[in-house]
């Protein structure tokens, strides 16, 4: 689906943390992002959304969240537990 270019990583998080099949996972992510299903893979739509939400964009914007900082926001956005984030939070 394009990973962090679009929303592939978000859909993957839902499959692996909630056992959601592809259509359910995509619908869940689209609802959280308040966009149409078709726009999940629309770079023109997803790029500004990802930048605004601070969940990581594919090109390197200096100072913008990536890695664990972005994953903390992804966990909040999708209302899921991400184990690396939980570990990181426990160390703060």
């Amino acid at each position, binding site marked *: 689906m394009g990973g*962090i270019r679009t929303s592939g*990583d978000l859909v*993957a998080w839902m*499959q692996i943390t909630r*056992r959601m099949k*592809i259509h359910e996972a995509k619908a869940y992510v689209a609802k959280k992002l308040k966009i149409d299903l078709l726009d999940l893979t629309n770079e023109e739509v997803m790029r500004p959304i990802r930048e605004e939400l601070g969940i990581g964009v594919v090109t390197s914007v200096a100072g913008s969240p*990536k890695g664990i900082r972005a994953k903390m926001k992804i966990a909040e956005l999708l209302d899921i537990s991400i*184990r*690396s984030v939980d570990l990181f939070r426990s160390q703060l």
Partner: protein
Amino acid sequence: MGDGERLWLSESDIKTDIEDGTADAAKRANIPALNEDEKKQLFDIIADPARIVSVNPGEEVIVTDDGCSMSFYSGQDGGGVGIPLSRMQAVLTYERASGGDTTSIGHSDYSFKPVKPIINFEKNDYYNISMVTTAPLFYGAQPNMGLYFQPDGPCPNPSELLPAGKIAEALQAQEDAADHLTRDLVYVGKKMAEVGCEGLNFDTSGSAGDADFLAALRAVETLKQAVPDMPILMGASGEFVIGMHGDIAYKKQRLAGLYPHEQAKVVSDAGADIFGLAIGTNTTRSVAWNLSRTVTFLKEATATSPVPVHANVGMGVCGIPMMEQTPIDSVTRVSKALVQIGKADGL
């Protein structure tokens, strides 16, 4: 062809191969064959004049991998292109330059057994990389029960015992090896969980037969009890579980001979979150024949599996030709058919 040879087939030849392929899969697994509409869809995908084909917008699926980023820095025997990158650089390149939906690392040998003595190295690398990745980062390897037989491991080798007529000894050796393997899978899984592991991949489970498959199932079950929030992907190694032992059961379900839709059920029962389906490619038959079989197996698995099903599309698997540099014509046709007709939740 299944060996990668470019072949010109007539319309009737392709249709015959599609018909034969789906009939073969349906007969073997006792599942429905593709219907007329699905066979037409498959023909249209295979006969598409474009070199590269793809699914329609909105039908895209995610991709998990078995150490894909390792191919950036490994050598020919790992399908690698030999670029001098660190593991972290390779993973980040895969995530950000290739747009991977998930990423992964694993031991270069890609088996769990050799991870044990270097577990702290792996934990450090995993932790460091997980701090800079955004997409899910799996730790993966193959259970690979073969490593527990002599001369590589502690158990007598069934391949030597069976020809000598030592049946009971061969069965016992496999049961003992499965116990060793289960312990190692659980050990590595628990250790990786300590550093915030976002997902574990038991890749190519059952490669040494039903006892190998059992070991992975038991490890999944144990790990899910110990670390319930750690996602586990369990992939199979073939269209049916090979009965190297023959009398191995998990929760009263005999494992030998289980086809993908049945494999998905036991994998889900064990607690895994994604099932990886693997169908070996027959190198002497066409991609159309191989793909028709695979889609038939996959369609039934996705229709009945309680968990998402990802179709493994590496070299020589699920209709992809068995060769080092897989032709992009075949790779894209296989991918499209697995998603559009087989209804894969991912690749």
